[in-house]
């Protein structure tokens, strides 16, 4: 196994506030890594840096042997990094099928997009199957429920066969059933993809995570298996200690 992504000495400072304060993180190819931490730990900022939305103040991100410094968002996607967002954004006026097809076509030259779509490509059909959205293929994405939108987003990523998937709180705001289905989806996706999941939901973490990295105040607190992390006194202090409210709140 070789590292798919290496983050070295990364810091992000917003107006004097150190959102990320010297993080080193390596994720191996094929891994399913959970990234947790209380509010303001820097989880989403970390994903933003990897995907080019936020520029690091110091340090660098090396993806698949290549530094991502200075690359724009779409170029990073083209290298094989896909992400979802906390508040899922799908294109409401396009149908589920069109959303997936648009994602799947991202490597085509622009001029070839001016031809009308005929049929359904294999990648799109697979994604419809994996996400269980086949029945809704011709409905506008605007009618989807919150859970279905997240699945559609994940499906859109899958059509692009990324080398690394970054999922930002995929089960936030979901019902119990939806969580369960998302968990199954995640398990099947993780079979043949490298995935980093940001998650707040401890129950979800216990069921589906193996490797966990805990962030706290912009630093890596501890890295290890779920059990190791759960039993670590520092993690307990961060989550359950002095400030009681932190453990149950969401967002970052």
């Amino acid at each position: 196994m070789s590292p798919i992504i290496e983050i070295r000495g990364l810091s992000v400072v917003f107006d004097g506030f150190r959102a990320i304060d010297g993080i080193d993180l390596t994720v191996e190819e094929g891994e399913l890594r959970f990234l947790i931490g209380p509010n303001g730990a820097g989880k989403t900022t970390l994903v933003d840096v990897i995907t080019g939305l936020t520029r690091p103040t110091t340090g660098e991100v090396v993806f698949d042997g290549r530094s991502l410094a200075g690359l724009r968002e779409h170029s990073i996607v083209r290298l094989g990094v896909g992400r979802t967002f906390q508040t899922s954004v799908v294109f409401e006026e396009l149908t589920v099928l069109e959303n997936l097809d648009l994602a799947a076509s991202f490597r085509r030259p622009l001029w070839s997009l001016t031809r009308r779509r005929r049929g359904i490509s294999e990648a799109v059909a697979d994604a419809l199957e994996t996400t269980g959205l086949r029945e809704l293929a011709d409905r506008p994405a605007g009618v989807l429920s919150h859970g279905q939108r997240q699945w559609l987003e994940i499906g859109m990523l899958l059509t692009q066969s990324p080398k690394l998937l970054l999922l930002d709180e995929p089960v936030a705001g979901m019902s119990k059933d939806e969580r369960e289905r998302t968990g199954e989806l995640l398990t099947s996706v993780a079979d043949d993809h490298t995935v980093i999941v940001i998650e707040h939901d401890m129950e979800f973490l216990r069921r589906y995570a193996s490797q966990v990295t805990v962030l706290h105040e912009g630093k890596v607190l501890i890295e290890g298996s779920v059990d190791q992390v759960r039993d670590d006194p520092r993690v307990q202090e961060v989550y359950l200690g002095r400030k009681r409210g932190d453990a149950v709140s969401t967002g970052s």
Partner: protein
Amino acid sequence: MNLTRLKGPGLFAAVAVLALVVAPLVLEPFRLGLLAKYLCFAIVALGIGLAWGQGGMLVLGQGVFFGLGGYAMGMHLKLVDAQGDLPDFMIWSGVEQLPALWKPFANPVFALAMVVLGPMLIAAVLGLLVFRQRVRGAYFAILTQALAAAFVILLVGRQGLTGGTNGLTNFFDLFGQDLAADSTQRGLYFVVAIVTGLLYLGARQLVGSRFGRLLVAIRDGEDRVRFLGYDPARVKTVVFAISAGMAGLAGALFVPVVGIISPALLGVVPSLELVVAVAVGGRFALAGAILGAVVMGYAKTSFSEQFADGWLYLQGELFILVMTLAPKGILGLAASARDALARRPRRPTAPKPPPTDDASGRRVMEEVG
């Protein structure tokens, strides 16, 4: 299913027959000329529909590209009329030598190419600069409007080069045809109508393709599109350039049809009027843009014939009404009416369908930190 599939082409054929057969038979030459003029505006409107309705780029300065096309055509016609001499207005302005800028326009191929390529090139350069910096929304709209204002100042200021406030007029000869003859004007009408139809079909093809889906996706979530691996700046630049090319072509057709191109025809106000027309017709459908331009053009002419100043107020009022009450314009109203009629006989007590307001349904992705 078969019926609905036929409805689009059927309607298009009906409109084509109306425009190419009925109108030339029924309308007197003066009115046919006016219709040709409205269709020139409709071509600009089509470009606005593409950029604004589909792509979300509110273009308030299409007059610039209309003008570039119009002046390119006008310069050529002036040079042909001058027969190797200086164009009349240059002599009046005391210009003694043909400016270098004018010289290549004596060549009809160059002039016709510049009609489309000039506006497209300028729009492409501007688009790349602006869209790469992620200038959009109101800022982009203001920028295009400022461009229109600046263009007019430039044209008025360079009297000897551009004819100043009067612009270019007094054309006599169009590729060997007498411009004043009814037959020439009639032929021009057919050219304009056919060009409008072809551009409409081309634009429809674009909107129906993956490219069109991508454009709508950019309109509704530009930031999200980036994370699908597309560069929105490129797509928007292409569409902005296409809409500019359409405006340029419209300007070039306008010149022989109406017989003049001047700053008053392409400043801020005429540019805005066309945007209003597109909104009134229905900006989310290409047909709405064309319909709006023709209807508003016709309304302007007939209303101004009776109350000279009233039109401006009526136009403003209409715009406010459309934006607040019917954001999808005339076409949107027609569609709602059709739905209401189709629903009534079956279920008299059916609840009203939820409002489908596109403007409020739009979401901007929050950039989380």
